[in-house]
């Protein structure tokens, strides 16, 4: 079951002699439960590829299907809705809303999707408790450590039960140990619930979590190998598959 299908996609920035082809004829299919680690040198087009999959940027050529739907046929409002329902985003710089508490940050996508406030609060609380942040619900981002912030961001990315989580360098602003712990937590939570994850990272140690490792060079997919994937993906009692 393919969650996302990238079909011969290229992205060129600019035109003429200054044109940069950031992504060059890439095809890729990601299934439910996949944990894909994307590696490659700086400037190789990883972020650009991730942005296109996340519908934040449109390809110059080729097409991207999300749950069999061609994203190029959708308008801005429909894409917005699609991102809200189908995607979770995790960023290098956490990108929490500074005015909101941890709990409210997680509530944000739920409330936007129309979940009643009370229910959204209960869900957010549960998600944060599962990520060992039950004692930080009322804290503002500025009072949280980097690892805590990223865990809040993970809870936020999972809030609407997305089918696909996109994470760009989620460990880059964390110390090695915290970065790895947090990312493993993300992968574990996702695969337990049969969600797909695409992680862009330079961190070799994440191979232990990945099911697939893809290498990008100069905008092209140059290699794909299986990851080690020794995660505990058994379901926790009480968490239903999506």
């Amino acid at each position, binding site marked *: 079951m393919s969650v996302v299908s990238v079909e011969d996609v290229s992205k060129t920035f600019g035109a003429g002699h200054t044109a940069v082809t950031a992504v060059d004829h890439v095809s890729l299919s990601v299934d439910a439960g996949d944990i894909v680690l994307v590696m490659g040198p700086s400037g190789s087009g990883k972020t650009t590829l991730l942005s296109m999959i996340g519908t934040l940027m449109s390809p110059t050529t080729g097409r991207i299907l999300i749950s069999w739907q061609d994203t190029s046929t959708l308008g801005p409002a429909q894409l917005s809705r699609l991102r809200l329902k189908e995607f979770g985003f995790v960023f290098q710089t956490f990108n929490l*809303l*500074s*005015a909101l508490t941890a709990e*409210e940050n997680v509530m944000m996508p739920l409330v*936007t999707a129309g979940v009643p406030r009370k229910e959204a609060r209960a869900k957010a609380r549960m998600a944060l408790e599962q990520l060992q942040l039950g004692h930080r619900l009322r804290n503002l981002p500025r009072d949280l450590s980097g690892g805590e912030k990223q865990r809040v961001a993970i809870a936020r990315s999972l809030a609407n039960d997305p089918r696909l989580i996109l994470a760009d360098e989620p460990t880059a602003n964390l110390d090695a140990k915290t970065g790895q712990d947090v990312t493993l937590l993300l992968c574990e939570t996702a695969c337990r619930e049969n969600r797909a994850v695409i992680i862009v990272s330079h961190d070799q140690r994440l191979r232990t979590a990945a099911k697939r490792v893809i290498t990008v060079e100069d905008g092209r997919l140059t290699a794909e190998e299986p990851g080690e994937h020794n995660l505990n993906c058994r379901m926790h009692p009480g968490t239903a598959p999506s």
Partner: protein
Amino acid sequence: MLFLAIKNLVQEKTRLLISVGGVAFSVLLIMSIQGLYQGWSNKIGEYIRTVPADYWITQTGATDMFHTPSVLPLTVRDFLTGVPGVASAKPFSGRRVAFAHNGKDINVYVIADDTEINVGAPARVVEGKAVPDKGEIIIDRVVGRSENIRIGDTIPVAGRTLKVAGYSEGGYILSFSFAFATKEDAESILQLPGATNFFLVTVKDSTDANEVASRIEADPAVDAITKDRFVENNTNIVRDTFLPIILVLLLIGIAVGMTVIGLTIFTSTIEKAREYGVLKAIGVSNRRLYTVVVEQAVTAAVLGYIVGADLALAVSAAAGTFVPEFITEIRWLDAAWIFAVTLAMAVVSSLLPVRRLARIDPAEVFRA
């Protein structure tokens, strides 16, 4: 998304304070000047409203008490009482007169208090004598207080020296006020031998007032003006003098309010550009984001309105006790339209930030 708007506002307390302060200032300005306008408009009509008349009969062309002088021979009374349907017709004499006091020119509108026919009495006497005797005058308390003229003082009016016998109330209009002297004294001040300024006509209960008026106006020398109309004509004097000033202050108020909200919301939007980009990325539609910005502006504006309106009420109450000329009336209607203007200011000043918001590229959020 109101909660996000409020959280964003509260997070930046200084900025919130500035925008609330700016709106409060403009509401204070607009409401005070409007209250003053309304207060004065009312005052000018207040005395005229107490004068018993269905119609004011004026010399043709005179529409109010202040602009064109109206002088009618006393013989007009015989004509008026002869008109079918007229119950009574009484002369009313009064004119604006200036006198010097402590080196300052003071304007009073001297009215003949004719006790025989019950015309020209003050609306309310609050201190001293209610009816002037020969050689006496009753002036408005506002003038007494602001010009420091006490009961018992004498003032020179049109070559005569009159003793202030009492203070009346409800007769103060802008730069001058009503004053009341005996019929004889008033006649010599106003110099109206065999004439008066207006006639007050009452109409018999059973007759059609309009018909009576047209019968009176058959005489080309006079106009018959209904009491309401006459009140309005006099009130319009305030409107004509004040409307341009009010409009200018209204525009200043709106400009200040809009600039302050606009700038604070705009800088906040720029500072939070990344967060708005994140919201776009995670699937919040542009429309909802615009709403967040408008809600911030409107919330700040509503807070500013509450502060500004309270200040306006406090200021006009306080000023009224210290500066007697400061007569204000803040009506619900005015509070309502000023509120509507405040909301409109908030919405219009969100337009620029909203345009900025529209240009934020959500793909930027992946750049560190």
